[in-house]
């Protein structure tokens, strides 16, 4: 598909432009962009489940949380992960996110639809409860403060250097997930999303496919958590709270599920409104609410659905446009 090449080129161009412009735009913007990118990894992991596999997980904050808490606990209690061993923490963060997802998946994957949503929600709340109540490890409600960022030749305490690092993780995550969803495995996930029964009849072990997707998403969630902990320098139960899961889900829906890029755009818009617009005007919540409502009403496919909508409007009769609208762009 030549179309796909153009898309990749455009995303790459946008990323290059982004990484070129941001460091020149003031340190607060750098900070916001860093936060948004770390969170975008989480949003993309949600998209992997929601957009590609058709599972709306309401507990993604759990993996995010364990990644973040792992980082903070290792850094403060064991002074581990502040030098070159930061990379080890990254690996551990991914593993712990994946491991937790592997456990939770056993409970959650057996259910579908709203039951899946409820189970993931409950399991996510378990992790929140643990963070809130396990005072000796997590500091309870007060959370954990980390002193400074890792320094391994590269001093991550420098906001711009840290921005580049998070950007690298973000870009690589996006690329990996893109490869994943384009792979035969990813195609089978899309098949499950569209009609699970048919996939079963075709001989696919759909439970296993969903389970693996769930674990992979958990791993990316853990990675996002590690980066998030270092972005804030502070981890608290607020990181793991239900709102984080809901936010990530809303971001995906806002940007357009099943596109990865949509998850990123959704994250950028929510962060832009919530953390940038809120410094300018007191009514930012109305703006955010308005964006959500309008998107749901007029763009059920999210913001990424705009091009095909426009194409359909301006070139009615051509089958390309209407076909695009009928099936989600992948």
């Amino acid at each position, binding site marked *: 598909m030549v*179309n796909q090449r*153009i*898309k990749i080129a*455009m*995303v790459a*161009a*946008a990323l290059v*432009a*982004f990484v070129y*412009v*941001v460091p020149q*735009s*003031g*340190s*607060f*913007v750098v*900070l*916001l962009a860093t*936060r948004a990118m770390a969170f975008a990894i989480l949003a993309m992991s949600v998209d992997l489940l929601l957009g590609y596999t058709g599972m709306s997980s309401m507990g993604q904050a759990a993996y995010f949380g364990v990644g973040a808490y792992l980082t903070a606990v290792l850094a403060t209690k064991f002074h581990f992960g502040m030098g070159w061993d930061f990379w080890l923490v990254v690996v551990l963060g991914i593993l712990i996110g994946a491991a937790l997802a592997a456990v939770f998946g056993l409970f959650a994957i057996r259910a579908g639809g709203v039951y899946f949503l409820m189970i993931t929600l409950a399991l996510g709340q378990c992790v929140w409860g643990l963070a*809130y*109540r396990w*005072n000796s490890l997590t*500091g*309870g*409600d*007060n*959370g954990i*403060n*980390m*002193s*400074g960022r890792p320094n391994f030749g590269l001093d991550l*305490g420098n906001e711009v250097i840290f921005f580049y690092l998070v950007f690298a993780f973000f870009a690589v995550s996006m690329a990996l997930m893109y490869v994943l969803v384009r792979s035969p495995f990813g195609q089978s996930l899309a098949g499950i999303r569209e009609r699970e029964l048919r996939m079963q009849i075709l001989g696919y072990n759909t439970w296993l496919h969903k389970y693996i997707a769930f674990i992979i998403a958990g791993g990316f969630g853990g990675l996002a958590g590690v980066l998030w902990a270092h972005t*804030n*320098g*502070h981890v*608290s139960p*607020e*990181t793991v709270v239900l709102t984080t899961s809901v936010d990530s889900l809303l971001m995906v829906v806002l940007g357009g599920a099943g596109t990865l890029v949509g998850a990123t*755009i959704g994250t*950028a*818009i929510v962060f*832009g409104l919530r*953390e*940038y617009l*809120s*410094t300018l005007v*007191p009514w930012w*919540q109305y703006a955010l609410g308005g964006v959500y409502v309008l998107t749901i009403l007029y763009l059920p496919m999210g*913001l990424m659905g*705009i*091009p095909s909508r*426009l194409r359909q409007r301006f070139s009615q009769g051509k089958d390309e446009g209407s076909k695009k609208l009928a099936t989600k762009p992948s």
Partner: protein
Amino acid sequence: MAIKLQKVLLGSCLALGLASTAPAGAEELRIGFIAPVTGIFAQVGKDMTDGFQMYLDEHGGKLGGADVKFIVEDDQGKPDAGVTKAKKLVLQDHVHMFIGGLLASTGYALAPVSTAEKTLYISSVSSADDLTQRQLSKYPYFMRTSWTSSLPHQPLGQWACDQGYKKAIVISADYAFGYETAGGFQKMFEDCGGKVIQKIWPPLGTKDFGPYIPTMKADADVIFTTMVGPMALQFPKQLRGAGNKTPIVGSGVSYDEFVLPFMGDEVIGDVSALHYSAAIDTPANQAFVKAYRAKFGKVPGYYSENNYSTAMWIDKAMQKAGGKFPGPEEFIKLMASIKLDAPRGPVELDDMRNPIENVYIKKVEKKKMFGYDKDELWNTVIKTYPKVSQFWTYGKEKFLAQPVYDRDFPPCKYCE
């Protein structure tokens, strides 16, 4: 396709283009103020901001001769958001100091920002004990104008013991603030000879105390409570409704002026302790209460008073500095050299940068006060412990040698 590209680029450029940094003015004092403007704590955040703003308005927007640029940022009651906003204030607005933070967890999250950005952080409400105790050395640019959670409750333990109460039940919200308030009370109460025979930790935000009230032991002489927000309204109502007549001594926030107007007559006679009461009968406080009430239509609670007196304190320090901000470390020294006469009474800093202040034991009474013509609930001061330090009478070394007050410290020796 081109549309998509345009959108992406437009989006990113739009977000970035807005971000030009403000140039630093010559002789102005830039103060960032972090409070919840949205979310469940929005009303408290407004009280905080109102207190500070009121002092500014009374003084023509100047502190110590310097024009003040007062920038309020919304932390939504979330530590993470607070950190982002603090960094925004420092990096983009180049503030000389940032003030505020409501929740203890926000205080813990903001203090490291002050260290990392080498910018003064004045905690004007947030009361997390350890920031000015065992962790202070990590935060050289941090000071507090408010209180530590345990500060008023150690005297309260003494007072309860002096009343002849022997056995107490602690029922307190299940988070750090609840542990620290209850810990302070229990430590002193037991050191004085009392016994805490039961500890109950209802989760933050509990509205139905039905499961807890029947389990409370009947042989207790007194109940210590720390309830926040809607819990504060519900607990006394349900306790008395269940026929339990045991006297209550509580944390000041359970009966703060913020909740008091919404309470029923069942709270009359309940005792609480705090470093402020709107009913302190001094001319300074009367003037403050009247001015505040005329402006905002309500009686000020400690959220407002603490921020009002923080502004007053900064004013005095800036006067000493000659109207020019001398840098955070020097400024803290100036703040420490001032003995402030705030509406809450005399306040000064101890050598751990926490206030030494009066603690008021208060009893809820229905009466007329300050010439207002209606009978209202007031926190009448029945005893004043003057110049209370966060270390109470234990002494700094001894106090700091013990762990921070927690769910399990002091241990419940007399619980069965």
